[in-house]
């Protein structure tokens, strides 16, 4: 029995059904504990004050903003090569989630940056790269919405996603390169290398919680997409009969 049988829609629905509730539960518990720990139990930063606590949201969101696209690329590649319909729908289901995390990363970045830099937006290499990422998600979702026939939409958006992942890397490199001449403020503190020990555990907790939440919502959304496709197929079948 190969693992590809899970890509059969009915099989996928049957197997993922018992996973949804535990995943939500675990994500909720970890998120609650992580938030409480990171907000109530960590000290204020001696420079940044309580603003630093935004990073407990910002860092995991920024990580997922990038990694969701990787998930989509893998799912698209599997879909194109193995011709599995569920795989395309997983990629489709992930896109709005990734876009939302990207938006959260941008907004929390702005909120964190305002008191630091005295401005809501700086053309920092990392922020700019995340902003560009947002447009990649937008294009991917727009393509799904624009192509009427779902099988074509699936294949075409998979091609776009794979081309996109190559250009997302190139853009990241280009933006780094671009930022070397137009030196702006650096966000290097933000991404956790110089995080104090007191912040480390709750930050890791939040990252795990965000990932669990991501898996849970991805599963629910993928299941919804599969149901929508089945509903569409049933309607078409009825219309033909």
């Amino acid at each position, binding site marked *: 029995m190969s693992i590809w049988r899970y890509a059969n829609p009915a099989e996928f629905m049957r197997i993922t059904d018992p996973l949804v509730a535990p995943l939500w539960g675990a994500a909720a518990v970890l998120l609650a504990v992580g938030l409480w720990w990171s907000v109530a139990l960590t000290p204020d930063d001696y420079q940044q004050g309580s603003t630093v606590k935004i990073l407990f949201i910002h860092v995991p969101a920024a990580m997922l903003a990038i990694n969701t696209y990787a998930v989509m690329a893998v799912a698209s590649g599997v879909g194109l090569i193995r011709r599995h319909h569920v795989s395309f729908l997983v990629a489709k289901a992930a896109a709005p989630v990734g876009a939302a995390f990207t938006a959260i990363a941008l907004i929390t970045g702005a909120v964190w940056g305002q008191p630091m830099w005295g401005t809501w937006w700086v053309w920092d290499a990392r922020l700019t790269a995340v902003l560009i990422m947002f447009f990649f998600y937008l294009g991917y979702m727009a*393509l799904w919405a624009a*192509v009427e026939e779902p099988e074509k939409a699936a294949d075409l958006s998979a091609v776009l996603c794979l081309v996109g992942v190559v250009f997302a890397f190139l853009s990241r490199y280009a933006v780094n390169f671009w930022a070397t001449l137009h030196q702006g403020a650096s966000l290097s503190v933000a991404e956790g290398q110089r995080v104090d020990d007191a912040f480390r555990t709750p930050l890791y907790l939040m990252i795990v919680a965000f990932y669990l939440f991501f898996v849970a919502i991805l599963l629910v959304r993928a299941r919804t997409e599969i149901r929508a496709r089945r509903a569409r197929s049933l309607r078409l079948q009825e219309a033909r009969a």
Partner: protein
Amino acid sequence: MVRSPFAALVRRDTRLALRLGGGGAVGIAFFVLAVVLIPLGVGRETATLARIAGGVLWVAALLAALLSLDRLFQADYEDGSLDQLMLAPMPLEQVVLAKTIAHWLTTGLPMTLIAPVLGAMLQLPDTALPALVLAMAAGTPALSFIGAIGAAITVGVRRGGLLLSILVLPLYIPTLVFGARVVEHALLGLSTAGVMGLLGGLTLFAAALSPFASALALRINAR
């Protein structure tokens, strides 16, 4: 004159673009007009204009290339020519390559030729103009190649022009960054060789990827 199917296709598309309604000349007019609007918007100080000239020319070039992209495959898709081209005695990847080259010949090449005039109007010093022309020559093919992928993906979408721009503009970011940077380096008297290498490399990469990705998308759309 070379008599190969490939050359015949390049000639055909070039001719179609140059005919009335083909859009080739309109794209160039757009390029010029977009650049002319800039001083009217940002003011006529020499230093400011020279400083932004490279970026302005590249952004205008991206938009002008984009304008003619939606007809790259769509016209042939709508009138059945694409079906016939798929049966032509060459792989679809070569068909895409020929059409993309024709697109560059009618957009990127004339933009490259007219760029020094516009650069001078934007107060770029004469010393920076050769770098500008070289950068356009090395970088504008990437615009056609990358754009072809987007055009192939959206070929079946009615009024797909807007969608096409949403898909393609983010993919243009590396070209824009490196292209504008060459001009900037020339302006500051720095060496342009390194950036030019990156820009050329990007174009080669796009040229290698685009025929396969575009042909794949066209085949999906033909079903």
